[in-house]
């Protein structure tokens, strides 16, 4: 069940909230949330509900084992088994077909390709299950004796399908203590409406243009059209995914939960490193906590077998970063295009980190302090970032290396389709309002204006805010009822 469906907005969510607030104790509320979360999941994918429940129970048991055998060698065996269990399930459902196809094409065999349907949200579920186990293993939290707590964390319906990926150590303090207030509740509703409008009014409306441009014959795509398509996709992806995150954060707030932010105006970035601290933030912090830091620490404490010296900071950092990006690449999908997408970002982040280290060393040598970028440097840095972003996200959209090369040729004018044609002009004019709105709301200009307005006249601000929210809600619902909305892009992960 999508957050943008009529059944969710007018049935599931109101019933959940009423029942939730009718129950007197937090322990009962937790049980209710587990039941409703499982129902929510089963509504979308009833075939895998049993596997989901078994998996929660297995991870609950792993948690108890990690706690019992704290600091003992056997825990390392248990953690290995835990990883095999969780990533084994993920591998089976998401990557087995790709593996068989690859073996067939490389070794020229005809192995039967299994017919496997990927369960809804399996990648996000795996992340949550592993976060629970590793937080107990790394002693950031203790294991929960109550299986309901583990089930609540893993199944929590606002986040189960597409995140944000709250880590267990962030979620655990909220299991038995949450802040219920009217302010929180209304903020939650506001956030939900904003998310709904982002998805329905912007992402879904720009989607038809994006689909047309990306699926047309490459030889007919002019340079301007290719860039309009790429820009449209950047807008679609951001408003789709951040809209979903806003709704998840909003529902969490209505129920008294704090959810970490997933986006912070990512397109404002001036580097690949900055972008990944602003885009899908909870994925970034997950890989940092559970892959980057453990790998970095393991490496930097080990000796190089050739030099018998400890691995340098640079070597440990690079190895950990490489593994992180290999993982993110594969996590996004089974295919060479996603692997290339991961390696693409690794390459730029690696370059930026080395350049930063070089500048740091130079400053140290000359004994000068870090200086802020000049205006021109900021503009140049932004242009550099926007170019790498455009080429990366077209690869993400197309998910096929050969077709992406063709699209890139379109963008730089190597396809011979010309600079501009009537079709590009028509697309631009038809979608101009959406493109302008998309760019405008991708930067904190609206927020700046709203803050100024609020400072000047609080009453008028509040009146206008609720009027705008009401209009956005009504328009979004009209669109939903008319049945033109698409499913969320990240549902496939």
């Amino acid at each position, binding site marked *: 069940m999508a957050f943008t469906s009529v059944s969710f907005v007018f049935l599931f969510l109101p019933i959940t909230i009423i029942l939730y607030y009718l129950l007197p104790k937090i322990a009962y509320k937790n049980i209710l949330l587990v039941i409703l979360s499982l129902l929510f999941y089963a509504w979308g994918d009833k075939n895998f509900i049993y596997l989901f429940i078994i998996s929660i129970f297995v991870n609950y048991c792993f948690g108890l084992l990690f706690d019992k055998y704290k600091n003992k060698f056997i825990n390392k065996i248990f953690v290995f088994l835990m990883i095999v269990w969780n990533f084994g399930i993920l591998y089976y459902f998401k990557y087995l077909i790709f593996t068989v196809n690859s073996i067939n094409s490389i070794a020229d065999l005809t192995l039967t390709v299994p017919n496997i349907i990927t369960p809804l949200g399996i990648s996000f579920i795996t992340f949550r299950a592993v976060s629970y186990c590793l937080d107990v293993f*790394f*002693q950031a939290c203790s294991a929960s004796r109550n299986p309901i707590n583990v089930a609540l964390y893993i199944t929590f319906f606002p986040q189960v399908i597409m995140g944000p990926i709250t880590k267990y*150590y962030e979620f655990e303090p909220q299991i038995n203590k949450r802040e219920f207030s009217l302010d929180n509740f209304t903020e939650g509703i506001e956030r939900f409406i904003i998310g709904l409008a982002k998805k329905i009014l912007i992402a879904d409306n720009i989607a038809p243009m994006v689909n047309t441009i990306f699926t047309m014959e490459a030889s007919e795509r002019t340079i301007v059209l290719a860039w309009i398509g790429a820009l449209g996709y950047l807008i679609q992806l951001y408003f789709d995914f951040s809209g979903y995150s806003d709704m998840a954060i909003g529902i969490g707030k209505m129920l008294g939960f704090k959810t970490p932010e997933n986006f912070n105006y990512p397109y404002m970035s001036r580097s690949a490193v900055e972008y990944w601290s602003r885009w899908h933030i909870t994925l970034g912090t997950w890989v940092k906590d559970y892959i980057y830091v*453990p790998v970095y*620490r393991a490496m*930097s*404490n080990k000796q190089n077998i050739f030099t018998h010296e400890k691995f340098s*900071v640079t070597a440990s950092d690079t190895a950990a970063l490489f593994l992180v990006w290999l993982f993110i690449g594969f996590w996004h999908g089974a295919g060479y295009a996603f692997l290339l997408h991961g390696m693409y970002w690794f390459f730029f982040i690696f370059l930026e980190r080395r350049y930063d280290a070089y500048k740091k060393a130079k400053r140290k040598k000359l004994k000068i302090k870090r200086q802020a970028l000049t205006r021109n440097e900021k503009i140049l840095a932004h242009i550099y970032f926007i170019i790498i972003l455009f080429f990366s996200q077209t690869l993400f959209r197309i998910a096929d290396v050969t077709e992406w090369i063709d699209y890139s040729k379109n963008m730089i004018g190597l396809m011979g389709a010309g600079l501009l044609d009537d079709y590009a002009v028509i697309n631009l004019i038809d979608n101009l309002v959406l493109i302008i709105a998309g760019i405008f709301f991708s930067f904190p200009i609206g927020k700046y204006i709203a803050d100024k307005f609020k400072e000047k006249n609080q009453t008028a601000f509040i009146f206008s805010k609720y009027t705008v929210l009401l209009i956005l809600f009504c328009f979004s619902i009209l669109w939903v009822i008319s049945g033109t909305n698409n499913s969320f892009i990240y549902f496939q992960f």
Partner: protein
Amino acid sequence: MTKSEVMEKIKEILNDLFDDDFDVTESTVADDIDGWDSLAHLQVISAMESGFNIHFTLGEINNFANVGEMADSILKHLG
């Protein structure tokens, strides 16, 4: 070791690592020191571990709100 001795040694390690002479108090946070980013944080952790001959758990290292909390954790490890 007392807490003030631990703080003194932390200051020494940080000054040495960042090659600068700055004051460190219990309320010092990473943002106060030029160059203390997430990568440098891991170097800080390694330097503390070898300096005090202790080993932090992975659960601990992300949870220090300031230098004071790190000092408390070091004291706990020193027993």
